[in-house]
């Protein structure tokens, strides 16, 4: 089995209205239950927006924490799921369900050393 991260790519700015969001959340719940039933679900959560981000970095010997995201962009990772499936085709099928439910693009990336 292989581990894949599905990164949900979200545009900065407008949020969908609550009633639309409710429908999406219900749909996401269905997908999650399906994945759990197939023992493909590992982890998944939506993330707060970049306004809640803090960056920690080394400056010489000093550690500095700063407000804000790592890079300012038009898009950010709005949530991530980790799934365990047999190959890329299976991962792409799951990503397709998320893309359909949310209308957002997803980046599918394999974890290193994730196969057995």
């Amino acid at each position: 089995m292989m581990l894949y991260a599905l990164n949900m790519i979200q545009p900065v700015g407008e949020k969908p209205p609550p009633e639309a969001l409710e429908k999406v959340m219900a749909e996401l719940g269905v997908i999650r239950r399906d994945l759990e039933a197939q023992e493909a679900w590992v982890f998944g959560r939506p993330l707060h927006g970049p306004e809640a981000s803090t960056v920690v970095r080394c400056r010489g010997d000093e550690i500095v924490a700063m407000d804000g995201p790592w890079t300012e962009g038009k898009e950010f990772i709005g949530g991530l799921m980790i799934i365990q499936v047999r190959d890329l085709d299976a991962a792409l099928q799951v990503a397709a369900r998320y893309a359909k439910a949310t209308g957002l693009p997803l980046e599918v990336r394999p974890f290193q050393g994730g196969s057995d």
Partner: protein
Amino acid sequence: MTVEQVFREEHGRAVAVLVRVFGDVDVAEEAVQDAFAEAVRRWPVSGPPPSPAGWIITTARNKAIDRLRREAVRDGKQVQAALVGDVEPVEEGVVRDERLRLIFTCCHPALAPQARVALTLRLLGGLTTAEISRAFLVPEKTMAQRLVRAKGKIRDARIPYRVPEKEDLPERLSGVLAVIYLVFNQGYGGRDELAAEAVRLGRALAELMPDEPEVLGLLALMLLIESRRPARMVDGELVLLGDQDRGLWDRALVAEGQALVRRCLRMNRPGPYQIQAAVNAVHSDAARAADTRWDQILKLYDQLMVVAPTPVAALNRAVAVAEVEGAGAALAIVDELDLPGYYLFHAIRADLLRRLGRVGDAAAAYDRAIETVENEAELAFLKRRRSRLP
């Protein structure tokens, strides 16, 4: 059979079998190379074995096992070294054809389009990296990196090595056909070996998926276009279909292509490649250019516009409209199309304007075509055409 012939015919199959056995493209490729190197040493002395393909595959498998065992021992992985011995045996003679899986791996949509073409030529066609880079006019180092990256992605992202499931098959198959047709078109501009390779891949696919009409349609299309190769260039100059010496056409390829078109018609599941093949079959039917049944061709393009309404299809349809209804009607269609970067758009427009006596507009259109064309022979052709305007 010489080693070279066996290499051409069997390289793809051997790599495909080895990929299944070892689950790794690099291991398979190296082992098959080692086996062919061994064949070059041995066959001239001892003569080719009764089943050359089986010999290559068995030898490659043994070479791969030796190599993996050596590496495992070197890295202190004794257990793994022992396990390598359990690789399933390959029976000489009856070798299951694994090429189909490998084609779908090489043409996987998760790979970059250029990488799909390069991998297909490398693994299935057995072309060297140097040959592929020459064909696509990129530096060898760039092509080598592209191949390494693609193979790395197959391994790391675990792009599966299998024929897609039924619901994905039509889409994935059309991706495979697009790769083969792209290779063929790369060869159209004079790089004969690529066209030949595309036909070879097309034949292999038709053998592996004989019930897929679009697979047969693509093969028919390539064969019919290929049949005109001897007539297409005369003294290094491009000759248009209407002006070609039809006696030079390869009749065997024409007959084979037309038989495939008839087989597609019986299957009655039309698709873009089949329809384009049928158009070419109509051209092949005409003993003289003047005998061409343009009415039939127009009907076929009407059908193509229903199943695959692309601007390029509309442009080709306009050429048929010019013959059936006149250049004016065709120009009206062409002027509605948005294909500014496509040299054939400008070339066809230029020809229609010429036929309508609009010489100045025709010259301007030829200039646009000359700016956008890439192929040398086509460039020379367009310049000649432009210089002949009154």
